[in-house]
């Protein structure tokens, strides 16, 4: 009985988080604000479902499986990367060069300019 309550709790909480993430995607007004909703709330929702699945397999079906951990690890690794790419796309398509603050360095933003030929390796060492 306690096992069922625990698994159901994780399932319901993750369902609510997933719904909040998708609703936030629809309700927020700016693209940069909209990035928050799926990358935080929905990832947490999927994490809850995977925890519930792991508990179900362990406690009801009596075998431990690590596939859920793999999926969780993969999602938690890839969510920031895809968010970064989407933010870069939004900056490139909607903002002009003058809208962004100055980088304070020799090179400008990497979205607008090509990267420098040689990466500044050991810059801190040269200063100190």
């Amino acid at each position, binding site marked *: 009985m306690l096992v*069922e*309550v625990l*698994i*159901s709790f994780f*399932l*319901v909480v*993750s*369902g*609510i988080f*997933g*719904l909040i*993430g*998708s*609703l936030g*995607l*629809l309700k927020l007004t700016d*693209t940069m604000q*909209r*990035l928050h*909703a*799926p990358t935080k709330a*929905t*990832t947490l*929702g*999927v994490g809850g*479902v*995977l925890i*519930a*699945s792991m508990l*179900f*397999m362990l406690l009801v*079906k009596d075998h431990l*499986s690590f*596939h*859920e951990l*793999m*999926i969780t690890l*993969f*999602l938690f690794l*890839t969510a920031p*990367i*895809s968010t970064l*790419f*989407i*933010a*870069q*796309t*939004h900056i*490139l*398509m*909607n903002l002009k060069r003058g809208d962004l603050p100055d980088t304070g360095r020799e090179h400008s933003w990497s*979205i607008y300019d090509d990267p420098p030929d040689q990466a500044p390796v050991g810059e801190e060492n040269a200063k100190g």
Partner: protein
Amino acid sequence: MITYALYFTMGCFGLGLLFNLLLVVRGPGQADRVLALDTMVINVIALLVCYGILQGTAVYFEASMLVAMVGFVSTVAYCRFLLRGDIIE
């Protein structure tokens, strides 16, 4: 009890998928559409895992793993196409 919780969770994620589809149609920019498609992939992963619990099999983990990989690669490829006009340079 787990069955009813599963129905509730699947309903939540299905409703979320509908919201995402609305954003894909409405989205003011390309970045919003990519974001909505990425969220759809995450919701589909959750739905697949829920269906796996409902059926009591472990087959659907491989399917959700594949969906996760394909979703990540497609998001990155779409963004790269918009950023550079080319996917593999």
